[in-house]
């Protein structure tokens, strides 16, 4: 069994990650953190903007072009809905809104900003909840999920084990937004 040494290294890595965070521009607005009133009636899945990921009723598939994700430049202006897609090897930049996903605790839809190949912000543009219980879950989950995305990127994680139910809808909406930007995780 192993114990204490792990905790020590945790602190060290945590520091490194914190430091690397500071070098990137982060907007801290989370409009969706307290269950926004907007509501998607009827269908469980809607798309605020076009393109990939919104066609199938119970799933979304998208091709993620291979783009090089490096560097920490702070350039890159955001243009909502713009897609710098494709096949080039330049780093993705821009802002895109993902597909609205049903999480089981309501609908979630996120907007992501990518600058020079790095996710610099994720905001929930739509969080609906059918009841108080779901609202509480979302209010707790949405800020956490945002943190998870930003920190997972720093640690180059391919996936998270033990993620919550809500997070999968969040991830799916995020992925569809990233797909529009031609961003490769």
């Amino acid at each position, binding site marked *: 069994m192993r114990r204490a040494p792990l905790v020590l290294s945790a602190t*060290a890595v*945590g520091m490194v990650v914190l430091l690397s965070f500071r070098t990137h521009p982060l907007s801290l607005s989370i409009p969706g953190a307290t269950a926004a009133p907007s509501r998607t009636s009827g269908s469980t899945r809607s798309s605020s903007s076009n393109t990939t990921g919104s066609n199938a009723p119970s799933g979304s598939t*998208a091709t993620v072009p291979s783009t090089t994700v490096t560097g920490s430049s702070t350039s890159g202006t955001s243009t909502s809905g713009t897609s710098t897609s494709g096949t080039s090897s330049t780093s993705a930049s821009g802002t895109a809104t993902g597909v609205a996903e049903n999480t089981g605790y309501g609908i979630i839809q996120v907007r992501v900003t990518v600058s020079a190949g790095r996710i610099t912000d994720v905001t929930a543009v739509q969080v609906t909840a059918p009841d108080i219980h779901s609202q509480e879950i979302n209010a707790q*989950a949405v800020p956490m999920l945002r943190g998870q995305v930003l*920190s997972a990127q720093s640690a180059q994680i*391919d996936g998270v*084990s*033990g993620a*919550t139910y809500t997070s999968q809808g969040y991830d799916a909406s995020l992925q569809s937004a990233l*797909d529009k930007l031609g961003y490769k995780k």
Partner: protein
Amino acid sequence: MGDLRHTEEVMGTVVSFAVHPGTLDELAARRAIRRACATLHRADTVFSTWKHESPLSRLRRGEITVGDAPAEVGEVLQSCSYAREVSGGWFDPWAMPGGVDPTGLVKGWAAQRALADLESAGVEAAMVNAGGDVIVSGEPEPGRPWRVGIRHPFDGSRCICVITATGAVATSGTYERGPHVLDPHTGRPTGAAVSATVVGPDLALADALATGLLAAGEAGLANVARLPGYSAMVVGGDGNPITTDDFPLDVFAV
């Protein structure tokens, strides 16, 4: 070509796929993903405890026998029986109120079969993440293993650590199952751990062992360590993680 990603709502959760087709063309890779999704939906149809007329629900009510049920039911219950044995009784679907409930193993079992669909189609590498239970094959990039973060039990915005994965990673936590995890031996809450992760070749068994380990706490680590290829981590109520010696820890993070 680039990677393919797909998300599918099924089994009361959302399953995400990351697929590197390799030499497989895109159409064939998409077909393989569709087949994998059909496998997941089939598992849901057979094993849902929420669907009144599912074969499992009918079995629980005593309306049919295992022999009457689809063959997968017998297969899964056999896996459950094995998991109960090797977990020292800490995973016990027969100790649940309301009849046998293999839910703690089924999600992992179904995701493992979904991955098998992708592998048999010939994809180069893939990750299937079934609501936090992860199974991978191949490598995301040549020479780099898959890296899987383990959710921090107290703070979902962080991972408590990152591990390298070559097979299955299953995590069970009180944040997901509620604070009152029952000891199948006594039927009483244990409170032994807040999170348990099991790593190994098979996601069905890893899923079941993680469920049992959450109830057992540190005392259950030895049972997992005894199984060839399996390792584990338990996070206690104090937030301190304890691992078996060969747990594939990459970094403590983020």
